[in-house]
């Protein structure tokens, strides 16, 4: 209970979380569409344009003798899989969560999904969980990321759990700061969070 009391203001001051909570219908519809999305996403793993790029590289690799063994060994479908792996990895890129949003209707307009200043405590929080060998949180993170990746949708309807976990990590990171710095950071991030909410509401109001 004490934890929720402390964590609640962070949720309240994160535009993306409020935005999603106020749009439950579209979030649920999006999530319910995952079977179609997943089918389309999985069939596009070896999309022709990706294979074409690999073939172009293979054909021009190493030297004049085309399609050498080394070229075949390096430029093949495994490369496409590795590329997909790094696409998956990019689902965790902090920029989306702390600055730009996902660029869809599931992201609050014109503001950071999570307050941008929380990036620094997020790093400290990540370090804290690693130091504590709390692997569970990382597994949960990777699993939700994998689900979004398999569905092929890089939006907060699917990445909402990651958003929450990042916020939680930031919260834990702030706790690790020295008391003086912690107070300054808390006050600063609450003022900035309130500003973001105000900006989001102002934007909705002026555009309606």
């Amino acid at each position: 209970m004490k934890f929720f009391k402390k964590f609640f203001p962070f949720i309240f001051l994160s535009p993306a979380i409020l935005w999603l909570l106020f749009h439950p219908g579209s979030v649920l519809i999006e999530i319910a569409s995952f079977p179609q999305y997943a089918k389309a996403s999985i069939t596009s793993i070896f999309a022709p344009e990706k294979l074409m790029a690999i073939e172009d590289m293979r054909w021009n690799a190493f030297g004049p003798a085309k399609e050498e063994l080394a070229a075949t060994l390096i430029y093949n479908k495994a490369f496409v899989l590795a590329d997909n792996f790094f696409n998956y990895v990019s689902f965790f890129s902090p920029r989306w969560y702390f600055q730009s949003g996902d660029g869809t209707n599931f992201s609050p307009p014109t503001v950071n999904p999570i307050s941008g200043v929380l990036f620094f405590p997020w790093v400290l929080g990540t370090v804290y969980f690693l130091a504590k060998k709390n692997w569970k949180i990382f597994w949960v993170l990777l699993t939700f990321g994998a689900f979004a990746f398999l569905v092929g949708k890089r939006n907060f309807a699917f990445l909402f759990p990651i958003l929450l976990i990042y916020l939680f990590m930031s919260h834990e990171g702030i706790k690790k700061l020295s008391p003086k710095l912690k107070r300054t950071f808390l006050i600063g991030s609450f003022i900035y969070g309130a500003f973001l909410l105000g900006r989001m509401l102002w934007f909705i109001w002026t555009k309606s």
Partner: protein
Amino acid sequence: MVHLDEVINRHFKVLVFAVLVLALTMRLLSIEKYPVSLSMDEVAIGYNAYSILNTGKDEFRESFPLAFRSAGDYKPPVNIYLAVPSIYLFGLTEFAVRLPVALIGSLTAVVLIFFLSSLGLSKAGSLFGGFWLSVLPWHIHFSRGSFEAITALFFLLLGSWLFILWTKSKKALILAGSVASFSLSVWAYHAERLFTPLVALFLFFLFKDRIELAKIKIKKQFLVAGIVLAIFATPFLKLTFFTEAISQRAASTSILREASLGNALHLGSYENLGERIFDNDFYLIFIHWLGKYLNYYDLRFWFWKGLAFTPPGYPDLGLLLAVDLPLFFLGVYALIKSKNEKLKGLALFWFFVGPLPASLTMNEQHPLRALVWIPFFAIVLGHGFDYLTKKVKSWGVFLYLAVLAINFVYFADIYTHHFPRYYSEYWQYGYKEVATYACENRDKYDNIVITDTFGGYGPLNTGLPYLYVLFYCDWDREIFLKTGGHSEKILFRRPNFEDFLKPEKMLLIGSPWDFLDELEKKGKDVYRLDYPNGKGAFIFKENR
């Protein structure tokens, strides 16, 4: 069985030398051929160094300048002066221009070993840091292309290492060397103008428990360091406040120049109070900067697609090799567990501040401007390797080295085959042949016109062909050194319709975009030069 740690400790000096040899090999092998041709900046460095060597003046006839006006910019002076002895020894050649930075890049690997060691990292971890840098494509590429950022990084690391050394030895000469190195890093490249003072201040606070400021001896040493700093800083401050040499560069690359930000700013004219509060310019600038800053914290950029050797959608290389990914995570874990608080503090500082200079400039994820970040990765990977040797034992090291070898073959192929094929035009490929041909055949024509607009996909690039003519044509160079102007025979502009009507005999060297429609069939084609990807680069035409 002899442990790897023991081997490294016993043969440390030999292994440091081996790292230097490896780094030199990676940076000097076929240096004239890769990158595919001298860039505009490289020919500018080469010619200005040649001009300083022969006349003591730069291309604009200014004596021993501290900021070189060239290629539409003010160039930091360090690389140009470093190229002078090399050009004296080897002449005005591609090798001579590229040699100094390749040497400095190689020495950086050695300095990195001592820097890491001075921070308390094990000999195995430190040595690995140097080895890792010696084979790092990110650093190899920029070392081979005469980039100023490589020189600046060398001096930054040297300054940091000497400072840490001074906190132990308290020798005035070492402190003076540290200050001189930090200062040279500021003189060498733009990113260090912001980064170096921050690092120096941070190191001071990090090691202040060792400094003993109250002692007279230390105060005297600070006085000496202050004098050294003043020697380097005074002309720099003069350039900053009384000329446009420093400010012009900052203004021309600032994020404020980006259209996406510029169009959003109100510049003080807000329509209402709501706009003034919630859409104010400070917030818009902050959020724009934050996006650029956070863009650097992207594992895909770090390990998979960061150097842009190939077009989007094609296999590429990250700042680090993909094989470094597991070692990186191991290193982060080992660093967190480390009891060396100073090292942890410095790593965290470098992690957060490393991309700061790059994030304040135009362009997203700029690998050149992010080079100052390298020490952070070296600290982490050095720890990772240390952990690997202690906990995973030899098989882990051999597995890493085996995958590294595959990764390296891949890099070598990308760098020597694909990069020149896709991006030769961005290295002004073809201007060497253009300049050489024009020079050799000058007696056959009354005038020679050389285009400044080129590109395989459209007339998208603008170059400075006069610099290539100065570099590759002795005849025009001698005229330029004497008079400050080119031979009247060579004109630098796009060929046009009127050229075909003129009575004099002209050689028109243009891109295919200069001879479109009816111009294509006019005159007589003498020679055609293609880019390595087969697209037309330059057409050599006689006007009659």
